[in-house]
């Protein structure tokens, strides 16, 4: 097991605090920035007096884990509320407003409802797998929280292959979806499972490839160093402000939306077509677990997009973790916005988009990044923009079947 | 064109068809001629009745009838109504589905409700009633078999609420209860007041 938790590492904090001493304001800013780290340090410091070393280590692990374990479900609960509120507003409705002020207690009401609901297992179902599937779907969703840098020094496990770890772990979600869809012995579930498999495999490729330019420029797979690489201009030199980063960000975000089965790529659970897809036969808390996984995935994927392209926790004035959450929630808002606006694409169009459009575009992006790396400033901005626009235009021309036709309508008197 | 002229025109084109005007509609006396006449009406340059608006059955006690409303989408004329009569027992009429696809469900409906068998229909099954349903509910002599039966508990409930239940119904329910059977039929909306 990897044991390099932030608490064991030497922070820049100690050296920086001397800077912070200069004025009261900056000092408080620093404290605020590192508030969680300090809290953890204090706890460890207290326990370190009367506990052996291994117990201290265990406590450190436990603190990190419990922070994530609380954050995950809590995010999920309030994301449901946020989603319903935002979509309601987009549809000129109010959204939940009966439980608590502005419906703030709605998630708890939902939770209680989910817990008290009857747990139905179909007669013909493969009971063991049917039971395991919701657990296996939540597991990777929680695991990937480990490598997200929530703020300065706030990464639970700073793996040097953090990015790959994220992608690898989230790719195992497919297996859980398969287990759910296969074990329910429902045809809608089965269709949902097959759709999900095809979708996950297809979208993983452009997603990974769209990340590659970032890795090329940052020179590391560790999420922390990627964030560090975007720290210039007072923490505003984000990768998204470069042509390749912009395109990569859009592609990555689209793939992320597809990866966590959200509209307009929510085919595996396309409500109007296959009822609820792979979780058709789930009820009660198991169903809630599927939902939890979905929302946590959208949170972590937004977090990763922020980390890779939007400078992570970098940003002026505000504490780092506030920046991170602001950016992440902005991306989640966009996801909800998608859901409130767009119809679902069809399964073959989904595949077509991934293989015929996004994949070549990411490859072009890769080449452009190389071009960017090896040329000097005035040339690289104009050149890469032109190249990317060209690639986009060629691909739209090649994918004629998805481009809308112009229709003319006649009138009879 | 006057009705007589139309009739003559059809008869000259299709010799041997017996036609008759009934209430501004053309009665085809031998139902087997129906596809011929319809085909003529659909294809002839003069009529072009290419659109079969409605197919329906009707029960006139002595005979069953199928009524076809034809229109022309090309010439925007119509309606031209064809009817064919068949006996209640041998209700067989050739289907118009080969000519007009739109007749498919409507003929199934007429079969379902009146029991008119459309020959050569590609898929003549019941459409609204369930498989295994007996009888043809739109025929005038159809008796809803269970309308007289109420469950004993229903009758109890009704009487408790001061609703009078006819004696016959009560008796029948009692009998069924004694036999240990539960009347399956549903309670008719509200028992008819006496």
């Amino acid at each position, binding site marked *: 097991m990897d044991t390099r938790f932030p608490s064991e590492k030497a922070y820049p904090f100690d050296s920086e605090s001397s800077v912070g001493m200069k004025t009261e304001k900056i000092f408080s800013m620093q404290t605020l920035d590192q508030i969680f780290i300090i809290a953890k340090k204090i706890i460890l410091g207290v326990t370190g007096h009367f506990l052996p070393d291994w117990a201290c280590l265990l406590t450190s692990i436990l603190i990190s884990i419990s922070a994530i374990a609380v954050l995950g479900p809590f995010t999920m609960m309030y994301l449901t509320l946020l989603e319903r509120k935002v979509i309601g507003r987009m549809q*000129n*409705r109010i959204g939940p407003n009966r439980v608590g002020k502005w419906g703030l207690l709605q998630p708890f009401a939902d939770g209680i409802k989910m817990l008290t609901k009857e747990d139905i297992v179909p007669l013909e179902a493969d009971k063991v797998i049917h039971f395991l599937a919701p657990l296996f779907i939540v597991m990777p969703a929680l695991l990937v929280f480990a490598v997200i840098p929530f703020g300065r020094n706030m990464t639970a496990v700073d793996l040097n292959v953090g990015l790959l770890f994220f992608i690898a772990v989230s790719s195992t979600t497919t297996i859980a979806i398969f287990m759910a869809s296969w074990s329910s012995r429902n045809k809608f579930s089965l269709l949902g499972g097959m759709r999900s498999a095809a979708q996950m495999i297809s979208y993983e490729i452009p997603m990974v490839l769209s990340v590659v330019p970032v890795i090329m420029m940052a020179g590391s797979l560790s999420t922390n160093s990627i964030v560090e690489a975007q720290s210039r201009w007072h923490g505003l030199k984000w990768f998204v402000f470069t042509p390749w980063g912009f395109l990569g960000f859009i592609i990555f975000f689209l793939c992320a939306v597809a990866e966590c089965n959200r509209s307009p790529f929510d085919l595996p659970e396309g409500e109007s077509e296959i009822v609820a897809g792979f979780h058709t036969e789930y009820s009660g808390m198991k169903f809630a677990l599927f939902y939890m996984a979905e929302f946590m995935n959208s949170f972590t994927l937004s977090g990763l997009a922020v980390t890779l392209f939007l400078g992570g926790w970098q940003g002026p004035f505000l504490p780092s973790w506030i920046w991170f959450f602001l950016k992440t929630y902005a991306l989640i808002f966009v996801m909800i916005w998608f859901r409130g606006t767009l119809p679902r694409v069809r399964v073959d169009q989904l595949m077509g988009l991934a293989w015929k459009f996004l994949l070549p575009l990411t490859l072009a992006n890769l080449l452009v990044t190389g071009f960017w790396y090896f040329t000097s400033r005035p040339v690289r901005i104009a050149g890469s923009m032109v190249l990317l626009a060209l690639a986009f235009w060629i691909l739209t021309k090649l994918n004629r079947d998805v481009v809308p036709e112009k229709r003319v309508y006649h009138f009879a008197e | 064109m006057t009705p007589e002229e139309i009739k003559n025109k059809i008869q000259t084109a299709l010799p041997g068809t017996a036609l008759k005007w009934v209430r501004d509609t053309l009665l085809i006396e031998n139902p087997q001629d129906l596809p011929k006449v319809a085909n003529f009406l659909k294809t002839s340059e003069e009529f072009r009745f290419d659109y079969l608006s409605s197919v329906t059955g009707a029960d006139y006690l002595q005979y069953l009838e199928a009524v076809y409303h034809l229109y022309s989408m090309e010439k925007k004329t119509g309606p031209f109504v064809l009817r064919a009569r068949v006996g209640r027992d041998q209700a067989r009429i050739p289907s118009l589905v080969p000519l007009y696809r739109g007749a498919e469900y409507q003929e199934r409906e007429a079969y379902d409700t009146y029991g008119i068998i459309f020959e050569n229909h590609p898929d003549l099954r019941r459409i609204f009633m369930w498989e295994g349903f007996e009888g043809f509910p739109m025929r005038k002599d159809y008796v809803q078999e269970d309308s007289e039966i109420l469950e004993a508990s229903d009758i109890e409930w009704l009487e408790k609420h001061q609703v*009078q239940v006819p004696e016959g119904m009560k008796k029948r329910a009692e009998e069924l209860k004694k036999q240990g059977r539960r009347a399956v039929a549903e309670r008719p909306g509200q028992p008819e007041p006496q």
Partner: protein
Amino acid sequence: MIFGSGVLRSMLITLKNFFTSYFKGPEEGGIFTVEYPETRLPEKERFRNFPFLVYDRNPENLRCVACDICAKECPPKCIYIVREFDKEGRPLKRPAVFDIDFTVCMNCGICEEACPFDAIYMDHEFEIAGPERQSRLLYHKDDLLKSNEYFHKIRPTDATAIDQQRREAEEKKKAAAEAAAKAKQPD
């Protein structure tokens, strides 16, 4: 047109509605939800729900004469009337039983139209939900009776017009009776 511009355009529309929902009224893309138990839509006068029986002054004096016309005309046959008899067995002009099964009634308003005695009208009361299906929704005469004042309250225009008609009819009847009496007197 760049591929993707249509999607962006439709997203702008939803974003616009997201913001207008906070600032604008329901006419300009604001929230059009009516938070039902607290706020209600204005009641329309012609709104019809389930029928009720009108009485003048006191419940004994109801207009219904148990003629059974509404029961006959009622399309789903949800009205059930039994005429009242006096001790000698002569029929009285009032119902002993007047039941309407609201589970069957379909709010068509034909009873109101057909009634020759202006006795049955459609109510505005729609909050009749209850936990029990059968007994709660079978309304008996006592549940159905409502005063003419109530009728005036919910449907002022119709009620005034009908009162006017009834008064005229009454006067006509009185005049006719007087005329008949006058005509009789000389004999």
